[in-house]
């Protein structure tokens, strides 16, 4: 029987670590919601944000605030430039989804290769030491990193929520995500919405990479696993449900953390990919707990309206 204190410690550490996944999932999911694209190029932007901060902090020896500004600006700029010179061109050509997939995946790889050439494959951290002061609260170790991670995640999620709910620009994003053509009829520029989304995604990516780089080593290649985790959380949360995707990211991180009690840590990634496969084949529109609860009743009353996943996938 595992000590309850150990379980609580895993719960807390898992929740704190999930902050990185939450921020990346929001960047990925918001982009998918507004543009309708699985933007795997975000793996490249993660690398750009991290190495920009690393360069400013370690090579130029400038303060953290400058590093954060450089990371955010470079990730947002890369994201917007990709939007203008890549995705917009493919949209104008009415390219198929395969072209977008290839473009984002290959762009991410190109960025990763450039970063590998510039910075090598050694894991890098933003600070020379990543040992954070720890305090014991009720027998649970809580580090300063945990506190800042949770605080940053909560602050950024709240700001995004307020931005989408209360500002005109935020409501434009929601309108474009609902129906871009209809939104344009009302004078809302879809292109502008895509670019604003790119900037927001860049900011979230930068925050996530700051947390990742202050907790452990980052290599140019590590961003691919992160973007896949964001994809899984987006899928589990359901298309277009950005904040539920963030909750799914917390759940995924907790499942991964608790899995060390039953399986070896080297199998943890398999758990992640297993989730990806199961999520997309069984829940292509995400898990809808309300629908699951009322399924027998709904199935009895309107069986003809229940579509196959393939139909569902095409209609989303």
């Amino acid at each position, binding site marked *: 029987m595992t000590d309850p204190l150990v379980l609580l410690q895993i719960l807390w550490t898992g929740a704190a670590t999930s902050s990185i996944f939450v921020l990346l999932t929001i960047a990925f999911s918001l982009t998918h919601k507004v543009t309708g694209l*699985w933007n795997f190029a975000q793996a490249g932007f993660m690398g750009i944000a991290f190495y920009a901060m690393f360069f400013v902090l370690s090579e130029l020896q400038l303060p953290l605030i400058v590093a954060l500004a450089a990371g955010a600006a470079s990730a947002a700029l890369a994201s917007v430039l990709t939007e203008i010179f890549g995705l917009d*061109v493919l949209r104008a*050509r*009415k*390219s*198929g*989804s*395969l*072209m977008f*997939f*290839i*473009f984002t*995946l*290959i*762009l991410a*790889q*190109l960025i*990763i*290769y*450039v970063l*590998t*050439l510039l910075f*090598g494959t050694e894991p890098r951290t933003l600070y020379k030491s990543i040992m954070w002061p720890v305090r014991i609260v009720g027998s649970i170790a809580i580090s300063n990193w945990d506190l800042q991670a949770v605080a940053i995640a909560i602050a950024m999620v709240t700001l995004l929520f307020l931005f989408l709910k209360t500002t005109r620009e935020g409501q434009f994003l929601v309108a474009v995500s609902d129906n871009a053509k209809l939104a344009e009829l009302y004078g809302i520029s879809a292109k502008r919405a895509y670019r604003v989304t790119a900037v927001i995604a860049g900011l979230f990516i930068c925050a996530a990479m700051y947390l990742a780089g202050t907790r452990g080593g980052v290599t140019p290649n590590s961003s*691919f696993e992160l973007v*896949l985790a964001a*994809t*899984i959380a987006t*899928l589990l949360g359901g298309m277009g449900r950005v904040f539920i995707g963030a909750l799914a990211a917390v759940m995924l991180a907790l499942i991964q953390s608790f899995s060390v009690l039953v399986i070896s840590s*080297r*199998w943890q*990634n*398999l758990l992640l*990919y*297993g989730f*990806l*496969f199961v999520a*997309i*084949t069984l829940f*292509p529109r995400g898990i809808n707990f309300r629908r699951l609860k009322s399924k027998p009743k709904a199935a009895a009353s309107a069986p003809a309206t229940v579509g*196959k*996943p*393939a*139909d569902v*996938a*095409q*209609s989303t």
Partner: protein
Amino acid sequence: MEYILTIMVLIAIFVILSSSYNLVIGYGGLATVAHPIFYALGAYTSALFAIHFGLPAVVCVLAGAMVAVAASILLALSALRVSGDYLLIASLGFQLGLLQVIKNFEFTGGPGGISAIPNTITGPWRTPAYLLICGGIAVLTVWLIARIVHGPYGRAIKAMRDEELAFSALGRNPITIKVVVFAIGCGIAGIAGGLYAFYFQYVSPDQFEVLQSAAMLTMVVLGGMGTTLGPAVGAVVLIAIPQAITFLNLPPAVMAPVQGIIFTSLVLLFLFLRPSGLVGPLSRNRMAGRTALQEQSEGAAE
């Protein structure tokens, strides 16, 4: 000279791979990116059979193809319930998951892979002999796929790809055709894996990662998706050009990323300058057509 012949063997293997992938994605319309895992299964199975059972190379390669076919049916039956982007990502999950399994088992050599695969052809004619075998199988693959897609079964495959609903309305079962196309394509990828394992005598999980998916996809799309010769041309161009810098004698730490940069830059360049593919203008029109079809079906669903 040996180096150039080795590159030619690699090109022949990639012609087999990209042509078989074209059957699945170009003719079958099944948007999966998991092709490298079937290539890996072929390579690993052949290597393990040769090392542990000492079977002849032909039997090992065929066993690799069989394992790839079995795995492809497993993926097809579960993942073909979804389509489009969703199938792409499901197949990515399948590929990365299986790779993780390969990386973690000891009998597959873990992350280090398997070395010392028995040498089946020895002597100074080893590489030319392999080039002959791989080149022959590459030509045979392109011919076989051309025979399939230009015959009655090929017309059924293309009808299923272009209008699945109408195809079903005619009483045909699209799932059966999808599974068969998938199994043939993946089986051929398994054969390519076996050839790779026996020629290079070393396989590791890194050789079958996501970049390999992107590379194969790119060979097919930029060569000319849905054309018989396009993927072969794509494989030749995208394997040969990045190798040219090998003669610059750069240090290994610089060589790999520079080759990667050249490869990915070429892909992006072709993607924007020649989106219809190097062979035949058909694919761009067809892809645009498919987009329109998708839009129509989406509109109908809404």
